[in-house]
């Protein structure tokens, strides 16, 4: 926990990036994906980030989730400075603070929906009964029909699989959800349902959501849409 400074009147932002740079080496050339990029997400916000392919959206989410490290700059999530955490502490921090949702769901195909959702809970000192209760609650919240809770992913539709993935992301009750094109693999109807679900999570459970998307419907639901044309360069605080 960071100390509350006397002059700070606004609550700690959910995400705060300060002059973050990240580049990759591709053969001989160096690709600057993020260049002194600054960005803030307030707690409880629902942001849709729209940008062309290859502009560094996934890189940004990975940095915020601590899956990757910046070359320069500071990343603070809910007041925690990520650079200050060692690998093991970062892993533990991630299990309590971040829920990831991906375009391709990444469910384990031979495990039932409930078993998939249970996986993050296995890391916590909970009894089997307590885990089952939380899994049921998360799956019910996402609107997956009860009788499908024990289906395996290949027996579910794309929209239902994404619901399971969302249940898995929220089952540990993390304050921040990072969504990387969550509707990218779904048809319009299913995609809209997923967006509505995310909105519900934002409004009812006060989850802060940072969502990368190409979906035009996202604009109508999010509090704020951030458009990026040419890569994530420079100041974005006032977008």
């Amino acid at each position, binding site marked *: 926990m960071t100390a509350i400074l006397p002059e700070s009147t606004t609550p700690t932002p959910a995400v705060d990036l300060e002059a973050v740079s990240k580049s990759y080496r591709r053969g001989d050339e160096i690709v600057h994906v993020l260049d002194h990029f600054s960005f803030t997400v307030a707690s409880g916000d629902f942001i849709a980030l729209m940008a062309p392919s290859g502009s560094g959206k996934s890189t940004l989410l990975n940095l915020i989730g601590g*899956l990757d490290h910046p070359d320069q700059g500071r990343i603070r999530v809910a007041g925690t400075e990520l650079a200050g955490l060692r690998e093991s502490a970062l892993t533990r921090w991630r299990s309590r603070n971040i829920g990831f949702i*991906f*375009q*391709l769901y990444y469910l384990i195909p*031979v495990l039932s929906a409930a*078993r998939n959702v249970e*996986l993050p809970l296995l*890391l916590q000192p909970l009894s089997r009964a307590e885990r089952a209760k939380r899994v049921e609650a998360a799956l019910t919240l996402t609107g997956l029909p009860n009788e499908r809770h024990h289906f395996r992913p290949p027996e579910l539709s794309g929209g239902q699989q994404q619901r399971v993935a969302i249940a898995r992301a929220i089952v540990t009750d993390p304050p921040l959800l990072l969504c990387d*094109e969550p509707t990218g693999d779904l048809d319009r109807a299913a995609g809209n349902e997923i967006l509505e679900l995310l909105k519900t999570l934002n409004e009812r459970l006060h989850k802060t959501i940072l969502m990368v998307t190409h979906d035009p419907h996202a604009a109508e639901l999010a509090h704020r849409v951030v458009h990026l044309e040419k890569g994530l360069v420079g100041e974005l605080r006032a977008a």
Partner: protein
Amino acid sequence: MPTLFRFYPLVFAALRRHRVRTLLTIASVMMAFLLFGLLMALSHAFYGGVKTANRRTLITMSSMSFIESLPRADAAEIASIPGVAKVAYEVWIGAYYQHQSQILFALAVSPKRWLAQRTRQLSLPTTERTAWLGDRRGALVGSSVARRYHWKIGEIIPIRSNIWVHPNGTNTWPVKLDGIFHSKSRTLEQVVILHYRYWNGGVNKPNVIGMLRIEVHHLSELTAVAHRIDTRFANSPYPTRTSSARTFMKNFIDQTVDIGLIVQDILIAVFFTMLLVTANTLARSVRERSSEIAILRTQGYSRRLIFALILAEALVVVLTGGILGTLLAALLVEGLHTFLAEFLPTLRLTTGAELKGLGLMILFACASALLPVYQIQRLKTADALRGG
């Protein structure tokens, strides 16, 4: 840190992904340990006696060859050599019962000394013991032989020799069965014991012995006494070679066939192949699951925990295959033993061999998990999830 056991669905999920592949891997491990069990039993059949041989015992034989005999008078002479406690002698009769195919492990011995050297290994009723000691034409047999030929106490058994004959050319020594003993030693369970005096009285070339068993007073003097014996007879017409009972048995086996080396070569080849198969299967399965492993990392699974899960996966495969293979080997060895008891009396899968197998299983599981551990160490979570 929660107990590893609660993660079992993940371990079994990994194994269920490609059931056929998992079963084939288990089968290959099973074959390797089946072979391991059989070879260990075979090795025990050849070398098992070596370890049980009395450490204070020396064996003296003709230095010319195994089949050459020595004069019986040597026994008395050896008894007078300093350091020697007891001397027993015996001769191999090369016997059979009824048919040449029904081989008997028959020895003519000095009865009191033979029994004295084996009191702890034999269980024999006192009445039978006394009866046999007092009956020159009596025989003592292991219960295993008695059972095989349905011999009863008091029965007269015509023992015939492939090597020795009476002065009239016949080769039958009828004996009366005086006692049946039990022994933990499967070798002893197979023997037929005659009085040396009875055999010697009927043979055309009397007063020869096959070998001497000498007990020394002090274990520390074993080699010195052996040397004294061989020096004493070095210039006689019947030079001797004396070695410890253990060395003797081992040399005897190694001269026949170097089982140890064959077993070792086969096992190295088999285990190397098995290791390649399991390590490759595991590495392939980890590669195919890289996004699943990455998603666990996003949920807060540490690398170390994921290593532990992969190791558990390897252990399940290797232990399942290994234990099945060992059980199968144990069954087969038991079955074979009933047929081969005459030739390989100590064919047995020992607890020691089974434990060695278990140790190997754990070692191989760890070894086959090494490559996947390296893969996971290199796996970049962010890259593995850049599918879209």
